[in-house]
Structures are given as C-alpha cells and as structure tokens.
C-alpha cells in the first residue's frame, strides 16, 4: 500500500478520488482543491468529508441557527454562548452551570443498546470538556407506535443502554420524556442531555494555543469504530489490506468513561490544561482541527503515536475513528509529567501525540511522512454553508383546516369518564415508571426532584442549598400543525415545568430533530421552528446556550413530525423551597392558574380517542407564561403553595390524576362557571398550572395573583380516595392507578 503523502498528492494531481462516495458534492471537492492548491491526500479528503458532513458542519441549518445568536435576550447569566462544546451560565455564588442536549437517533435504531449508551457517553464528555463535573442526565426519547413489534426491540434496548451507561457513570437521571408516535417507527429519537457544575474560574475552552505546548490524547485506545465512510476510502483508493469492513457501530465502556471523568476533574483541579476537547463524531479529525482552529498557531501531530486497539488501522481510519471514551488536552511542557501521573493513578492511557506550533497549519505525520497539511479553520469552522430552498408545504393549509373542534365529543358523563380513563392509560400519558426505575436517580446524593416531577432538580451547594432544575419538552404533533408555534410551545412547556418546581428559568439548550433538509417542506418546518424558538427565547428572556441538530430523520420519503426538543435550565436559591407535584394534604385548595379555551388541535384526546391530528395547536402567549412562572416562583419562595403541576398534554385531568397518585390523595373538582366539563378536563390551553394551597395561604395567594393580573380559579379540594368531578363522575384512585401504571409494563415487561 502506497502512502498518499502530501508530496505524492502534489505529484499526482489527476489521481481519481472517491469524494462522491464519501458524501462530498462536486463543488465541495473543488473547493478543497482550491483551498489546498492541489488535490487532497487520502487523509485530508477523509478529514474534510467528515468535518463537512451535515452532522459536523451544520451546513443546512447554520443560516437558521444564526438567529439564536442574533435575537439574544438581555441576560446577565450567560458566560459562554453557542459555539463551544456546551454553553455556560452563571447560577450565582461563584458557580457556573453547563448543559446541553444531543441526539443519537440513527445509531440507536441500528443497535439500540449501544447507540443509546454511547449517546449518553458523548454528551457527558461535552460537559466534562467545559471544565465541569457532570451532575445529572436527562433523556428525551421518542419511539414508534407502542404496540408495534419493532418498538419492542428498540425501546427496551435504548432504555437499558441509557441506564447501563448512565448508572455505571454515577450520574442521576432526573428527567426526560417518552413519546410514542408511528411517525418515529423507522426513526426513533434518542436525545440525551447532561448538566455539569463548576466554579467560574474552572471554565475550560476547546482551543490550542502556545507554541510548544503538548497535545495529549488520553482515554481509550483507538479502534475501528464508527468509520463507515472511510471503508470507502480504503477500498477505492488504496488496496485494502486490513479488515475490509469496519463496524459502523460503536461500543461504549462506561467504566472507562467514569475513570476519564475522575481523572479529568483531578487534572482540572491542578490546573494542568490549557485547552481541552472531547472526541466524539469525526474523532481525532474533529478534535485536532477544532482545537487548532480555535486557538492561535498551528498544530503538528505524529499519528503513529496514537495507541491502537487494532494495529491494522490505516492513518485515515485512525483520523476518522469514533472510538469512545477519549479526550484531547493541550498541556504546557512542564505540566506534562504531572498530567501523566494523574492519568496513571486512574489507569487511563495518555500519550503525547503532537504539539502546538507557531505556524498556521494543521500538519499530521505518519511514519515520518506528511499526510495532512491544511489550514485548520477550513476544516473545522469554514465548511460549506447551504441556503436550502424551503416553502410552506402544499398540505399545511388542509391539515390546519381539519379542525379538531368538529370531532364528536363525549355525550354523557359515562362517556366522558371512559375517555378520561382512556387518555390517562394511553401509552403517551401513562406512567413511565417502568422505564425510569431502570435509571439511578439517587446517586451523588444531591437529587431534590426527579421523575415523575415536573422538573428534575439537584443541589449544587450543600451549605447554601443552591440548586438547579431542568425540564425537557417537545411536542411533534403541535409542531406538525404549526412548526413556529410548536417550537414555542415546547419552549413554553419546558419553561413552565421548571417554574412549577420553584426554579427560575435561566437559559435553554435544544435538540432539533427533523427530516431531510433536501425536502423543501422539511426545510420550511425547520426554518419556522428555529424562528419560533428564537423569537420565543427573546420574549422569555432565556438565551439559547447551545444545542444540536439532527436531520435526515425519515423513512424513505416520509419525514418524522418536526420535533424540536427544548431543555430549560433554572436556578433555585434554596432547594428546601422546591415545589413537588404531589397533592399530599387533605383539605388543601386546588386552584387553576391561567385560562382555558376550547383547544383540541394536536391534543392527547384527539389522538387517543379519535386518532386525529389536525387544526391548530394551542395558542401561545409568552407574556402569560412569564407571568405564570413569576407567580409560581414567588408562591414557592414564600411558602404559599405545597404542590404545583403544569398542564400540558392530557389537560387538567391528566395533571390532577398525576398529582393525586403521587400524593396518594384524591381530589374533588368542580367545573368552573362558563366551562363545560369536557373542555375543563381535556383542553390543552397553554400557560396553565394547577396548585395546591394551604387554607391559611388562600387569601395571600389569590391576592397576589389578582394584583398581578393572573386569572386564578378555585376548582376543588384535596380530599378522599377518588378523583371526583362533581355532578359528572368519580374515578377511584386504585382504578386510576391501575390504568396509569400498568400500560407500559403491559407492553414491554
């Protein structure tokens, strides 16, 4: 096998190259030749092709994501914005929090356990790379129909993978979502989020500066994982000698990752690194080019020094390998020894693979010969940008005209009761405890709230009781009906969930799951959703700190529902003031905050009872969301409420049932004047929450709502062992508990 060196490439300008097979477009290949002033070497071609892929370069989404940086709300909390491994916000008392959500959709369909496991591993390394100790994970998940046979393959594997990896790392899982919809049948969405905590001065960035500083690769050995595209390279340009087909699947080793976390935190503590980057998609190609691109100067790497698991790997493959559990650090020469000692202490393999140079190029050598010589920015940050055509789909009007208002409503109290029970027991509304009980929510000893609470909450400081909360939400049905409003509803729901727990929403991350950007319909959904989210964040004062885009989520021509998932991070000064969802005290009064209209488009009721999706999603009123959040936070701080639960899919009755089951207490509800029982129970109007108020606080609480202009309606009392809607029906707690808790185990256990 002849090595395709820079010299060789210069001398053989006409050699045919498999740029097309590697997913590059003709003009992209031409641009690479233009940048380099020659044809790329095989290694360079491999690097450009992965770094310019949709996944790494965001080439289709970039022009829309720009808005998140342009429409930034006034917010003093923001410390590090979009562009780094994860954003960072100030949560007070000298603490900073970093958080992010990422997708691992496609790998999880092929190999559910490992796909989901390595998804957790990847997001945790992102958080670690910012300088933070990871303190919690969340997992928004979407699967095909609950009763589809393939869901029985995918869901248990994904859940076991998330648990298997996260539990072994010692990260409490404090929230997420489980949604079923046949649109995700061939394309489940496995998103994973992580929160990390550090002191302000510990923030680290991914940059390589200071000529002479060492580049250290540490963690797992490099194997042939996840280098699908490169096998093309190996077979087409070179005579293939090594194993012909490399696995596209990566296998995770959570034990190795746990060591990597502890080792890295100890290294941070001794201030031994200048810049640091995790290895994720595109492996070393990504880490070296991004570090060099973000820093000053160039970088020189001796690829032979990389510790291998498989000695037959070609240099291209080493550059591309997505072997898990690896990090890359920039270390001053006199700190290298100490760095190595700490790695040895934790049984972590560490190797100096190169150094920062005072040049401007990323140069990579193999057996003494140069195989890469590129300006790093052109690889990492100056990839192609597409302005993909988009247009409102021809079917959008018809979909919106198919109003859910015309669906037959329950005619009798008995029918209403049956439909309520059906909604509560439907896979989407049913308890997810069978799933979430496979996750450790207690580890680290700081968990204040976890599933099934509205938001997860962890204590950050044992002495002051400072804490942070996070919720993740998305509703593909709403977004399908109106992507702009759907994105805002996802944001609003997540924001409301955080506020309901008593925390003040600070900032957001997101994971935008969409179909093919080459489809103008999908691109329109994407454009609308990002515009909605950016406008929404501006209105709510919660900046976007980062996120992730997952495109090409489709089966054949059929795209998934547009599914923007939003994670809102909040802060609470005193976790002892947190608000749980459980109704626990008999005699407490139940109040509905916000206004209820007849809003059934995209609702759980329309889906469960009528298998219908049409009309418009609930109206968005972000000013109202803001006010509601303020009231919920003040009420929690001043001890005016003992429980709060936000209202979302399934409407009021769903929330009341969950709060009753959680507290093991019943509720007597009265349908307020001006509302019919059906609308009262099942409408999904946004901007609402239900709270449980001690009688001694009633006046103070309603006065506060009145003074600030938030509609508040007394709807009942915590009492008995049934959910009773006076004059209509009663459902015993035991009947509700059976309906709510037996669905998921019935399907998957």
């Amino acid at each position, binding site marked *: 096998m002849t090595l395709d060196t820079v010299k060789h490439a210069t001398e053989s300008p006409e050699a045919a190259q498999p740029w097309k097979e590697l997913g590059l477009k003709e003009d992209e290949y031409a641009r690479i030749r233009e940048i380099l002033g020659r044809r790329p070497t095989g290694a360079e071609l491999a690097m450009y092709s992965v770094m310019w892929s949709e996944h790494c370069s965001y080439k289709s989404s970039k022009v829309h994501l720009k808005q998140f940086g342009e429409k930034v709300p006034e917010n003093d909390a923001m410390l590090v914005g979009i562009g780094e491994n994860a954003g960072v916000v100030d949560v007070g008392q000298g603490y900073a929090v970093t958080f992010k959500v990422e997708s691992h959709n496609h790998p999880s369909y092929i190999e559910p356990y490992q796909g989901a496991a390595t998804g957790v591993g990847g997001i945790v390394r992102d958080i670690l790379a910012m300088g933070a100790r990871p303190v919690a994970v969340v997992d928004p998940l979407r699967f095909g129909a609950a009763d589809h046979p393939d869901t029985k393959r995918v869901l248990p594997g994904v859940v076991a993978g998330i648990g298997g990896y996260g*539990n072994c790392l*010692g990260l409490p899982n404090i929230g997420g979502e489980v949604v079923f919809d046949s649109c995700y049948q061939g394309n489940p969405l496995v998103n994973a989020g992580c929160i990390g905590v550090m002191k302000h001065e510990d923030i680290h960035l991914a940059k390589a500066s200071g000529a002479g500083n060492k580049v250290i690769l540490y963690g797992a050995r490099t194997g042939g994982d996840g280098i699908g595209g490169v096998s093309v390279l190996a077979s087409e340009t070179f005579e293939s000698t090594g194993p012909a087909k490399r696995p596209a699947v990566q296998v995770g080793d959570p*034990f190795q990752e746990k060591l990597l976390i502890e080792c890295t935190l100890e290294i941070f503590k001794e201030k031994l690194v200048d810049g640091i980057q995790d290895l994720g998609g595109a492996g070393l190609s990504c880490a070296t080019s991004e570090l060099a691109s973000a820093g000053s100067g160039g970088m020189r790497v001796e690829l032979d020094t990389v510790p291998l698991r498989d000695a037959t790997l070609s240099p291209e493959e080493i550059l591309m390998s997505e072997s898990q559990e690896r990090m890359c650090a920039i270390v001053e020469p006199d700190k290298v020894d100490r760095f190595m000692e700490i790695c040895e202490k*934790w049984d972590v393999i560490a190797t100096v693979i190169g150094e920062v140079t005072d040049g401007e190029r990323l140069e990579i050598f193999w057996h003494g010969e140069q195989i890469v010589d590129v300006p790093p920015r052109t690889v990492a940050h100056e990839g192609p940008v597409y302005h993909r055509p988009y247009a409102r789909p021809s079917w959008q009007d018809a979909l919106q005209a198919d109003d859910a208002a015309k669906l037959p409503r329950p005619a009798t109290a008995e029918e209403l009761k049956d439909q309520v029970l059906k909604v509560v027991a439907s896979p989407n509304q049913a308890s997810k405890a069978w799933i979430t*009980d496979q996750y450790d929510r207690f*580890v680290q*000893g700081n*968990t*204040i709230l976890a599933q099934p609470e509205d938001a997860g909450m962890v204590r950050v400081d044992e002495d002051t009781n400072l804490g942070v909360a996070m919720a993740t939400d998305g509703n593909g049905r709403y977004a399908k009906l109106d992507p702009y409003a759907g994105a805002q509803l996802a944001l609003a729901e997540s924001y409301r969930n955080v506020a309901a727990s008593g925390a003040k929403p600070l900032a957001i991350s997101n994971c935008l799951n969409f179909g093919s950007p080459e489809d103008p319909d999908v691109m329109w959904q994407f454009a609308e959703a990002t515009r909605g989210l950016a406008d929404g964040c501006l209105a709510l004062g919660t900046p976007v700190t980062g996120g992730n885009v997952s495109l090409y989520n489709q089966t054949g021509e059929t795209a998934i529902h547009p599914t923007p998932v939003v994670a809102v991070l909040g802060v609470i000064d005193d976790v*002892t003031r947190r608000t749980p969802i459980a109704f626990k005290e008999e005699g407490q009064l139940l109040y509905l905050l916000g206004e209820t209209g007849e809003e059934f488009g995209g609702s759980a009721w329309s889906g469960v009872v009528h298998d219908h999706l049409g009309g418009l999603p609930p109206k968005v009123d972000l000013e109202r969301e803001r006010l509601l959040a303020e009231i919920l936070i003040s009420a929690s701080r001043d001890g005016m409420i003992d429980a709060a639960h936000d209202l979302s899919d399934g409407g009021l009755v769903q929330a009341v049932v969950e709060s009753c089951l959680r507290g093991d207490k019943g509720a007597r509800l009265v349908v307020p004047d001006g509302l019919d029982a059906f609308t009262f129970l099942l409408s999904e109007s946004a901007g609402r929450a239900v709270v449980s108020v001690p009688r001694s606080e009633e006046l103070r609480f309603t006065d506060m709502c009145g003074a600030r202009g938030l509609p508040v309606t007394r709807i009942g009392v915590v009492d008995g062992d049934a959910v009773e809607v006076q004059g209509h029906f009663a459902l015993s707690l035991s009947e509700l508990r059976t309906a709510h808790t037996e669905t998921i185990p019935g399907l998957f256990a």
Partner: protein
Amino acid sequence: MTARIGVVTFPGTLDDRDTQRAVRVAGAEAVPLWHRDKDLKQVDAVVLPGGFSYGDYLRAGAISRFSPVMESVIDQAKAGMPVLGICNGFQVLTETHLLPGAMLRNNHLHFICRDQKLRVESDRTAWTADYEAGQEISIPLKNIDGRYVADERTLDMLEAEGRVAFRYLDVNPNGSLRDIAGITNEAGNVVGLMPHPEHAVEPLIGTGRTDGLGFFTSILKKLVDAR
C-alpha cells in the same frame, strides 16, 4: 475525638462521596481510602460503598476483591474491625467470602431503582445498634445484580444464627432468596446489604427520609463508647 471511618474508592466506585457525606452527617470523620493502598490510615471502621467497581465486569465485586486495600480490609475484618458493604460493597464482601453467598442478576433482569421498605432483623450488629429489631425502614435500592443466593444449608444457618440482618418488605425487588436484603458475619462486625442507607440521611434529598442515618450513628456510638 470522633471516630474515623474509612470509605474505600475503587475505580468505578460511585457512592464514595455520598458515603463520606453520610459519615459526616452522623458526626464522624470520613477518611478516603484508595484501592491501591494497603494502608488503612488507622481508621476505626471501613465502608465499601456502592457503584460499579471495575465496571462490574466479570462479576460485580470480583476484580475489586483482589485490590491491595482489600488485603488489609480482610485482615482487619477478621480481627474484628467493623466493615459495612453497601450494594457493590456487599458484592465485594461476598466475593471475598467474608460473608457467605453470592449476588446474581436480578430475576427480572433489569436495573431497578426504587424506594425500598426493609425490616431490620438484627440490632446486634455494629451497624444496626441504633435500630430496634423488627423496625421497618425505607431506603433507596438501586442495582442490577442484587439477587442474593446461597445454598439451603447456608440459608438455614444464617436464619438460625440470627444473621439475616435485613429483609425486603412488601416487594422482593430482585428474587433474593428468603427476601434477604442484607446479612452479617458471626461476630456482627461485618455487614453487607444491597439498599443504600447513605442515600437516606438528609431530609429533602432522594426520598426525603432519613431512615439510613442509623447505620452511621450506630457505628459512631459503638466506636466512641469503646474508647
């Protein structure tokens, strides 16, 4: 001077910092112990905390058992030093044969995290003196290899000698034989259990109960009284 309680960290241990906190909450001094060191730093008692030491690869606890620190812990335990193994720590103790039996994959094959009700069957161990025999407590349980098994003879012996220290109540979460959640050695100084008392020492955190604090106050009292 208060008691010094060592908390061992193996590679992959997860609950070491929580256990140190629990020791402190009870009023004792927590002394971190590292798996590579034979030196127990003159501690008065040792806790082997939960987690996935060595990833639980091979079998839970199988690799940790051979660490240098365990050589000392085994010697000292045989000489009467109080040792508590929680979850992975319990698994290590069975692998060392300081405690009889073995831990296997849960009968339902899933990891399970729940608030678990237990009965404290014995208040005669070093770690349970602050409870009363028969007392019911709830503390978190979280594991995938939590099914306690031993042959019939061993089980009968444990029962006869009053060495079943904790039993699951309401639900047997993993198929453990005779609902056994934890056991003790003959002398009562070595105790192992699957559920996690260290996650139940502060109100608000986790399940919001403090039912696990008794483990740490028991040992503290015993050690201080012994002085």
